[in-house]
Every structure is written in structure tokens, then in C-alpha cells.
């Protein structure tokens, strides 16, 4: 298990290094000079030259990369171009708020998705299973930004129950106010993913229920509730965890969209801001941080399924 974990963590580090190079290369090697991107298409040649000199853009690309990477390794992401603030501080605050949003959504998705998936599998073919299946088929396909738009119209504009936009820190406004800003985005983000997760859990649970070992458990006289909980569920959870990790990636996309709609000051909004304002240092750092967060989620999922799977945890015997 330790060997496996060590291997996976080392793999993640390798991936992050590779991603830092890809992000950097994409921004610096693709057509269009960085200085033009920052200053706009109609900048004067002098202005471009001055900026390139200031940002060290005339150095060889590898030198630039090393300068950036060594900074990142020391925890220094530099100064944002469009606002006079250190990138690290901007990202730190945004990450915290996005993490609250993403964490709550993922938790909701996991609980609801797994519960509904198990329910559907156990009651396969029943009315509730068929209704849930149709809902899953439908909800998977509806984009978050549609839900966000509808939610604002209904709950903020028409009913006026919840705020349409913004964010209040937990420390300032208290739990209730903090939650009021989070409810709509969290629910909007969770609908599609819950459908997806419950669908996957249903099929892996069905596979477990139809397996020989479940038949064998029934032949041992194990009561049906224990057959499901003790014999089928642990095996059905393995694929569910993998699906949750994949959905964490989709969730990140949803967060970018939802933060934009709800004007939520998180990492997604910050990334969009960096793109719109051509703030290269901010963009590079933001992308790297998002990738790192996603890698960590994948790593956590891998380790969790390794814990659940004796084949990986103990290694094959022969």
C-alpha cells in the first residue's frame, strides 16, 4: 500500500511538472507575442519593446521557464499585471472560496448520487427506478449555466428568497448569510453530476448484485439487507469512487461557469478575469493551481479505492 501510494504521489509530481511546462509553453509559444496580448493589438512598437524588456520576454524561453518555475517552487508566483497585488495572495483567497463551493457540491453529489444509485439498483425495474432513470438521462444533459440562469430568475428575481450574486465571508456575516450565497451555486452545480454519479453507481451496484458471490451469500442465508450492504456495496463503491474523481474535473468546469454567473469571487472568476485582462502571471499560476487541486482529487480517489481494494492494498500473492 505504501509502495503504491509513493508511486502515485511521485506520478502526480511528474504530472504537475509536465503540466507547468505545457501551460507555460502554450502561453509563450503559441502565435501572438505575450506583450501584444497584454497591451492589445494596436500597441506601439516602443511600448511592446519596453514591456518585453520589463517582463524578461526577450530571454530564451527555457530561461524564462526556469525563472518562473523556480519562483513557483519557492511559493512566489510574482506580481499580477492588471492589479497591483501579489498573485499568491489573490489566488489564496479565491481558492479558499472556490474550495467551499466545490467541496460542498462534491459532498452533495457523492451522498445523493450514491444513495439514489443504490436505490435504483436495488429496486430495478420499479416505478421509482424508471422515473429516476428518466431524470438521470435528462439532468445529465442540461448545462449548469442554464440551471444558474433559471435559479437566479426564480429564487432571486421572482421569489427574492436568496441573493443572486456575491459572497460574504463566513467570519464576517455568520454561517447563515454565508450559506445563503452558497446554496444556489451548489445546487445548480450538483444536479447534473448527481445524475451522472447515480447512474454509474446503479450500474456497478447491479453488476455486484448479479455476481456469483452475491448469489453465494444468499445461498448462505445472509439476509437481503446484509447481502446488499456487506457483499455488494463494497465492490460497487470502487467504480463509484473513480467516477467521483472524473466528475471532480467536470465540476471544476462547472465552478468556472457558476462563479461567473453568480459573480462569486472564486478561482474560476479569477481565471476568467486573468484571461479577459491578459494577466499572464495570474493566468499561469491559476491554471497550475487548478491542475494541482484536480491532481490531488484524483490522487485521493486512487488512494481511497486502493484502500477498498485488497488486490492493490495487499498486492497479488502469486
Amino acid at each position, binding site marked *: 500500500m505504501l509502495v503504491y501510494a509513493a508511486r502515485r504521489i511521485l506520478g502526480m509530481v511528474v*504530472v504537475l511538472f*509536465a*503540466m507547468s511546462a*505545457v*501551460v507555460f509553453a*502554450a*502561453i509563450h509559444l*503559441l*502565435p*501572438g507575442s505575450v506583450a501584444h*496580448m497584454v497591451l492589445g493589438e494596436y500597441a506601439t512598437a516602443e511600448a511592446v519593446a519596453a514591456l518585453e524588456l520589463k517582463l524578461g520576454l526577450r530571454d530564451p524561453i527555457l530561461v524564462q521557464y526556469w525563472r518562473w518555475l523556480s519562483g513557483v517552487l519557492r511559493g512566489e508566483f510574482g506580481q499580477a499585471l492588471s492589479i497591483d497585488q501579489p498573485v499568491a495572495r489573490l489566488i489564496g483567497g479565491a481558492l479558499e472560496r472556490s474550495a467551499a463551493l466545490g467541496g460542498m457540491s462534491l459532498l452533495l453529489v457523492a451522498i445523493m448520487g450514491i444513495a439514489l444509485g443504490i436505490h435504483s439498483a436495488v429496486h430495478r425495474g420499479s416505478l421509482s427506478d424508471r422515473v429516476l432513470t*428518466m431524470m438521470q*438521462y*435528462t439532468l*445529465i*444533459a*442540461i*448545462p*449548469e*449555466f*442554464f440551471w444558474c*440562469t*433559471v435559479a*437566479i*430568475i426564480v429564487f432571486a*428575481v421572482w421569489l427574492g428568497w436568496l441573493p443572486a450574486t456575491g459572497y460574504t465571508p463566513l467570519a464576517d456575516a455568520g454561517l447563515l448569510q454565508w450559506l445563503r450565497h452558497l446554496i444556489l451555486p451548489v445546487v445548480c452545480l450538483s444536479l447534473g453530476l448527481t445524475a451522472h454519479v447515480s447512474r454509474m453507481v446503479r450500474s456497478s451496484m447491479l453488476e455486484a448484485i448479479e455476481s456469483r458471490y452475491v448469489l453465494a451469500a444468499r445461498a448462505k442465508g445472509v439476509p437481503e439487507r446484509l447481502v446488499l450492504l456487506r457483499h455488494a456495496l463494497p465492490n460497487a463503491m470502487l467504480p463509484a469512487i473513480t467516477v467521483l474523481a472524473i466528475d*471532480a*474535473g*467536470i465540476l*471544476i*468546469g462547472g465552478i*468556472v*461557469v457558476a462563479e*461567473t*454567473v453568480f459573480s462569486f469571487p472564486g478561482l474560476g472568476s479569477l*481565471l*476568467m478575469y486573468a*484571461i*479577459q485582462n491578459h494577466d499572464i502571471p495570474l*493566468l499561469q499560476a491559476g*491554471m497550475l493551481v*487548478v*491542475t494541482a487541486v*484536480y*491532481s490531488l482529487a*484524483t490522487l485521493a480517489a486512487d488512494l481511497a479505492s486502493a484502500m477498498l481494494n485488497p488486490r492493490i492494498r495487499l498486492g497479488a500473492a502469486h
Partner: protein
Amino acid sequence: MTAVAQKRRRRHVPLILVAGAAIVVVMVLLGLIGPWIAPYDPTMFAVRSRMQPPSGLHWFGTDEFGRDVLSRILAGGYYSLAMGFGATAISLVIGVPLGLIAAFYRGWVDDVIMRIIDLMISLPPILVGLLILAVTSPGLGKTIVAVGLVYVPIMTRLTRSVALSVLAQDFIEAAAARREKTVYILWREVLPNVWPTIIVEASLRITFAILLGSALSFLGLGPQPPASEWGLMIAESRPFLDRAPWIGLAPGLCLCVLLVAVNFVGEGLRDLLDPRMQGRGHG
């Protein structure tokens, strides 16, 4: 195999497949001929009829510039379809051959291809799109390419895993025992067995491609105004949600209908073609 199993089974075509396919066909037709049957010029400003609610004249109302929302929707359906089908086609064209090659050659070829794929997968899907569209000027073509690239790893992995199981079968060894050429083995022996799975995945992938493409458009990284891409239309309607919700709701609902219908087709095809359900003779 018993005599029962020898009768060719007539598979039951799922209802959702029929319903979904019917809607998709209608929406594709509307998307293709939409610009010509639109009641108004979708780009024509009419300051005097700004933000009019739905009526007999303007079924879906008008937007903040007085443009007819229905006409804009009809003119913009094409974008979603192009993103869905185009991006899926790109992921197929790149992903399927890569998967086949990795599965067939194994060894270092497999290692190299799959490590690159792992790397691509370790980036959350939206970041690939953001990265590409942040550094180039946005547009329909680039959105399609970005979304297509996002789904290449999925196609490669799927093709590889199905191809590996096909390649482990004895009829492949029988072909090797005849010294068949690689191209023959991949094209005639492997591909026909891989297709059903790929078609199902591709049809499901179209839904996600439209989803991601319209999300990127919504973020302003797709087709640029005055294009009436539906995601973009929703984004542009946001300042007027309180006064004129129909500007955003109408394209939103159209997008949902299209996506749900496409997804129904995909799920229906899966029910129909699921490789696990395919009739292989057993005792």
C-alpha cells in the same frame, strides 16, 4: 447453444431512442435551414421594439436591441450542432487510431501514447479549452478543436481497452498464424468488433461536446457577437434577467431540448448495442 438461441433475436428498439432521434432530426433540420425560415433578420436592430415579451408577432419576444429571439435561435442552432458533431468527429479521428495503435503494438509505443493521454487527462476538461482559447482569439473553429482535443483521451482509452480485449481473442491469433498484415488485422478483424462500443460512446460524447462548447461560448470563449450561439445568447441576457427573462430562457430551453434529445439517442443506442448484451452463443 440451444435451438432457442439460434433464432436471430429481434432486438427491442428503446422508446427513448426513437423519441430522441425524432427530436434530433427535427432540430438538425431546423439548424440547417433555420436562417432561411427565420421570420425576421436575426441581426436587425429594432430600437422601438426592445425587450418585448413573447407575443404573436415575436413568439419568443425580442432582446435588448429589439432583435427577434426566435429568429436568432433559428440562426444559432447551427453552432451547437457544429460543436457537438465537429468536436466528436475530431476526437474520433485522433483518438480511435491512437487507441488501436497503442493496443496493437503494446510495449513502448503503448507506454508513450498512454503517458501523453494520462497527461491530457490530468488537466480538467475546461482548462484545456480555457488554455487554448485564452492564448488565441476565440471563434467557432477553435472552440470545436478545443472541445475535440478534450475528448481525445477518452476515445483513445476506450478504443484501446476494447481493442485489447478483441486482440486477446483467438481469431486474432488465427490471423497471425496466416501472417496477415497489421492493417488487415486492425481494419478487418479488430475494428468491426470495436465499432459498436465506439458508436455508443461517440453518441454520448456529442452531448458532452455540446455542453462543454456552449459553456465555453457562455464564458465568451466561443463564437463572438453578433453570433447567436445559444450559450452566448444566455450569457448576453444576464443583465436583463429581471426585466426580460425570455431572452435567456428561450435559447436555454432550446439548448436543453437538443441536449436531452441527443442524450436520449446515446443512451438508447447503448441499450441497443451494449456489447455485454450482444448475442454470443453460450451453452
